[in-house]
């Protein structure tokens, strides 16, 4: 840029310098903006432990990952039920035991948000989905893993609810609010489900 301007006759060198400074300032601003620009990223908070809501979360997660987005799913409170592989009562407080007994032991036993009728509704929805050839929740969870979806279990709610690490499926990351926000602030889409 410098040489091409200087080769032309009649150009004031102070003008050139002023222009260079302007370009430099603009480049700096652009770099700053680029750093803050969102990435091809989608972040989901899975707060709910309802089968229908969790299904929606996994449809979005697998869909976004298929479309080339980096996907992060942050599981907190009732959403942790999705990641459970079993129930264990030893080492829990009375309240934690009660909570464990009243909450689903794995993704297989999640209720539906409406018309659950003690699990009949969830069974019905699962068989209706099968009839229509929709992937089961468990298939979608393993698909999400294959697609490289980042799954984070909220450490604080896990601790409060007394869910031990051995009750959860493997291959999870643990983290807190800043772990989620670091991804969410770089995302084009963030959803709370």
């Amino acid at each position, binding site marked *: 840029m410098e040489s091409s301007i200087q080769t032309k006759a009649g150009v004031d060198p102070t003008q050139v310098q002023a222009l260079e400074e302007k370009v430099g300032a603009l480049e700096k601003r652009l770099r700053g903006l680029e750093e803050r620009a969102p990435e091809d990223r989608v972040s989901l908070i899975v707060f709910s432990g309802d089968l229908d809501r969790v299904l929606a979360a996994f449809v979005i997660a697998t869909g976004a990952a298929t479309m080339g987005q980096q996907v992060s799913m942050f599981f907190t409170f009732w959403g942790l039920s999705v990641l459970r592989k079993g129930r264990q009562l030893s080492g829990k407080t009375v309240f934690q035991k009660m909570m464990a007994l009243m909450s689903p032991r794995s993704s297989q036993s999640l209720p539906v948000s409406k018309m659950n009728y003690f699990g009949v509704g969830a069974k019905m929805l699962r068989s209706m989905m099968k009839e229509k050839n929709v992937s089961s929740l468990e298939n979608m969870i393993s698909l999400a893993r294959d697609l490289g979806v980042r799954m*984070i279990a*909220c*450490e*604080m709610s896990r*601790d*409060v609810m007394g869910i031990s690490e051995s009750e959860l499926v493997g291959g999870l*990351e*643990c*983290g*807190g*609010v*800043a*772990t*989620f*926000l*670091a*991804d969410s*602030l770089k995302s084009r889409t963030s959803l709370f489900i």
Partner: protein
Amino acid sequence: MSQSFDKLLDARGLNCPMPLVNARKEIGKLEPGKVLKVIATDRGSVSDFQGWAKIAKSVELVAQETESVDGASVYVHYVKRTT
């Protein structure tokens, strides 16, 4: 490895988001270039401090260590104030 630091913050026993919130408070009192050492028992703090350093412009994560004290894990973070 012993990392040098200028101030120590004990966040043991605290849960998300308190180790981070307290660290933010303490680092605000330090001069740029100084390092805050945070000790926490919250396992999620490892990933949280990484996330904080990634997003916040004025902090840099210098080092992270996991130590074992009486059979329990303790997570140590060294955070530097940059500006």
